[in-house]
């Protein structure tokens, strides 16, 4: 099976033919290879959320078409045809804890597998395994999800999606509002899962550090159009272009540019992560130290 994602001239208009008509995507074409980690960046209202809602057929293009996992989605695709796809594409929405509703954490995580045809026993087994995966303590499994802390609720909600055992994982700012440690833990978890299960991951984010750390390619959206699709390294090596489009650099790259401007040090290669920055600086610092 071909697990790649292909958008062909997709346009999406909210409330067409009314004065409230709003073109959220216009003539968007791109492809995402299977088993890749793609970051989608852009400002609020650039069409990111609309784009990801196409990936499991929650929205169907106003015109154009896309294929996801060999499933063709056009304007006329029915919900029935999309059931299979919804199982294969797990979407973690912004603030996913809003989807919690069951009496216990375990039941909530088991909800999706049950909907997709697992027996209650199977679903529970998957749920326990997934809860462990997202590092939920066993003691909370029988509690109501509404009694948990914000960070734990987020983990339960994410587990609720992972329990579907999707092949494509779509993440819409999955760590918004979490503390730095929770953020790192969750992002590491997704990276690890991608490795182990060979997932295709699509991450919508405002955090350039995450783009630099995890993504193989970046898609930049602006006003419903694709401005760029390239590797993070290429994208972040064009600070003027980023500045023009009001996008930020990763912290490490920002610091590197500042150092370059105020000293005679030249980085061989623009560092994107803290580690890369530290490595290159480490080679430089002792030399400076010894000359003084």
């Amino acid at each position: 099976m071909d697990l790649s994602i292909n958008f062909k001239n997709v346009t999406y208009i909210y409330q067409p033919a009314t004065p409230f008509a709003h073109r959220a995507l216009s003539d968007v074409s791109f492809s995402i290879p299977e088993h890749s980690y793609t970051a989608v960046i852009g400002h609020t209202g650039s069409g990111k959320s609309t784009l990801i809602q196409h990936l499991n057929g929650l929205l169907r293009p106003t015109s154009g078409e896309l294929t996801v996992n060999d499933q063709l989605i056009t304007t006329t695709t029915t919900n029935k045809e999309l059931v299979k796809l919804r199982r294969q594409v797990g979407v973690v929405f912004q603030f996913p804890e809003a989807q919690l509703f069951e009496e216990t954490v375990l039941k909530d995580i088991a909800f999706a597998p049950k909907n997709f045809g697992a027996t209650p026993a199977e679903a529970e087994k998957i749920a326990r395994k997934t809860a462990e995966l997202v590092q939920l303590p066993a003691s909370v499994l029988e509690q109501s999800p509404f009694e948990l802390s914000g960070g734990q609720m987020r983990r339960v909600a994410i587990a609720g999606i992972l329990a579907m055992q999707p092949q494509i994982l779509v993440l819409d700012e999955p760590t918004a509002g979490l503390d730095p440690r929770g953020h790192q833990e969750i992002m590491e978890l997704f990276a690890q899962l991608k490795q182990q299960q060979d997932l295709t991951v699509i991450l919508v984010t405002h955090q350039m550090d995450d783009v630099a750390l995890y993504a193989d390619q970046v898609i930049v959206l602006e006003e419903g159009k694709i401005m760029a699709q390239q590797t993070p390294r290429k994208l972040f090596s064009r600070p003027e272009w980023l500045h023009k489009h009001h996008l930020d650099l990763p912290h490490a790259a920002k610091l590197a540019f500042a150092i370059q401007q105020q000293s005679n040090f030249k980085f061989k290669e623009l560092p994107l992560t803290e580690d890369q920055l530290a490595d290159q600086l480490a080679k430089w610092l002792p030399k400076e130290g010894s000359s003084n």
Partner: protein
Amino acid sequence: MNKVLLGRYLPGSSFIHRLDPRSKLILSFYFIIIIFLANNWLTYLFMFAVVAGCILLAKIKLSFFWKGVQPLIWLILFTVVLQILFSRGGTVYWQWGPFSLTQTGIISGIYVFFRFVLIIFMSTLLTLTTPPLEIAGALESLLKPLKKIHFPVYEVSLMLSIALRFVPTLLDEATKIMNAQRSRGVNFDTGSLRQRLHAVVPLLIPLFVSAFNRAEDLATAMEARGYHGGEGRTKYRVNQWRLRDTLSMFAFLLVTVIMFLLRTW
């Protein structure tokens, strides 16, 4: 979820848009009352002409008004059928037990239909040209005299404003939750009635939870900004009665006079 027209405001700067919300509220109610003066074809025709004039003044496409009628069409038809079957008088075309089809019945059925359409057109015009919060504000200002009999005017209008303000927010929230549950395999659109009712639980529970959370947040935010009830509170939007409002009042008085004349034509 976005198809709901109720409480939808179409921004504009037409004559009707610029009328004081109080006069729009009064005139809409007044219009509904004088519809009941209509008793023959000519009077109904005249009422339609008045509504058409108002719609023209508001510069809004007619299709919006039909959309206002659509959700109520079954209720209207039901009332029309009742009216036709149970009215008596004139030539009898058909009779069966208590049901009958008579000339009077058919005519009054058609009148009822017209009345509904007129009322819906006029109230749609009110909501399309007036932001919901201004309607609530206008209601508060019109109900002020009731304060004398200790009617909680301010509280009622605040409740109304908050309710209206949060309709779109809750609709948004509902769409989001529906999307999330759809992604987890819930099917809202197909299946038996039992299955569909079952599918609503994962939608309603999170919706209530979020509504309660929102209410708490709102209460905290209001208290943090020194809210202490309506006493001595000033308004950002001050309604101003202008010449056009007085003119509209006179126009509707004229309409009433014409109605009385046409009734006895």
